[in-house]
């Protein structure tokens, strides 16, 4: 369970961006997670409010976009979907494959508020 540590690291980044953009608050945080990143989406969502407490992202919603695992075979060239513990080519079965997608842990985007919250809801 290192999702809390991941959140803390991510929040340092978020706080730096929010300060740079002179935002008053972060409304939405969107991340992209692949199954091979070692991060569990539901644990990240649980950990986020705890890690975000007292930060500029305290009220933010965390949106997790799950990405599929895709590999490209270096032998036959096929691009196939794969499972976390079976990353071989779905076409010819060779293990010399390159991961095209599936290990991402990206902070994709932030939605920032630049006015006090009250102003938005008028």
């Amino acid at each position, binding site marked *: 369970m290192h999702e809390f540590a991941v959140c803390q690291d991510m929040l340092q980044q978020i706080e730096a961006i929010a300060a740079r953009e002179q935002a008053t608050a972060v409304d939405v945080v969107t991340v*992209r997670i692949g199954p091979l990143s070692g991060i569990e989406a539901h644990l990240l969502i649980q950990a986020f409010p705890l890690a975000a407490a007292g930060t500029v992202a305290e009220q933010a919603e965390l949106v997790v976009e799950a990405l599929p695992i895709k590999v490209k075979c270096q032998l036959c060239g096929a691009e196939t979907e794969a499972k976390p*513990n079976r990353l071989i080519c779905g076409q010819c079965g060779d*293990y010399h494959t390159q991961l095209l997608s599936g290990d991402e842990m990206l902070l994709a985007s932030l939605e920032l508020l630049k006015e006090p919250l009250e102003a938005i809801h008028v």
Partner: protein
Amino acid sequence: MCDTCGCNITHANQHLVKPGGKLSRVEDGREAVTVLKNLLSENDHVAGHNREHFDRHGVLAINLMSSPGSGKTALLEASVELLKDKFRIAVIEGDLETENDADRIRARGVPAIQISTGSACHLDAHMVHDALHELSLDGLDIIFIENVGNLVCPASFDLGQHHNVTLLSTTEGDDKPAKYPVMFRAADLMLLTKADLLAVLDDFDPAKAETCLRNLANPAPVIALSAKTGDGLQDWVNWLEQAVSAQQDRIKTGTTRRPAIQPDGAQLHAHG
């Protein structure tokens, strides 16, 4: 860039402005920022700093990962005996509590820094950075970082190492790479430890363990060894000697090496 003609919409953020996308409900005082950086970029920044520090001193850094009790410290003890006449070694030990492992290494005449992580289940680059303040790298050839015993979390944190070495002990079962793919995918070398027990364990098949590793598309070499009997240790020493020599070549050319699989390798194929 303005919000009127659409010149602020790029390939990377266009999904945000499509109906239902984040920016489709943009109001006054609200702004979307595309980041596309690794979640752990703060950690990675410090890890890069650690790696530069190792490279500047010509030291090879090896991150040892495994479950608790698979024999990381026993392997280091045996390795120190075999390597100490040839290389200068130091060890960073990671555990939740106690100085036990560092004491075992120091008893062999090798400097060891213990990181007590408290309740943290892995080492991160900041912890290693702090430990490096207590250790002189001058004249060192190899630094081993013994990660917290855990087959899950340590795989996600770059420490600044050049190689990941993952241990799988024969008592754990030959299907561990299939059960813990993130960890074993990150291995540059897999060591099957406690190989002396293979004689009495009829349910551990080294070939099956290797097949599970290959199923992760990992071409890493596999060495079976026993720190207790010494069997296979020479293959491990040979691998280390090659790694040290490759590191010395890299120093001459001003290049570095990162473990084969890095979490932020994801950035290379980030989708817009």
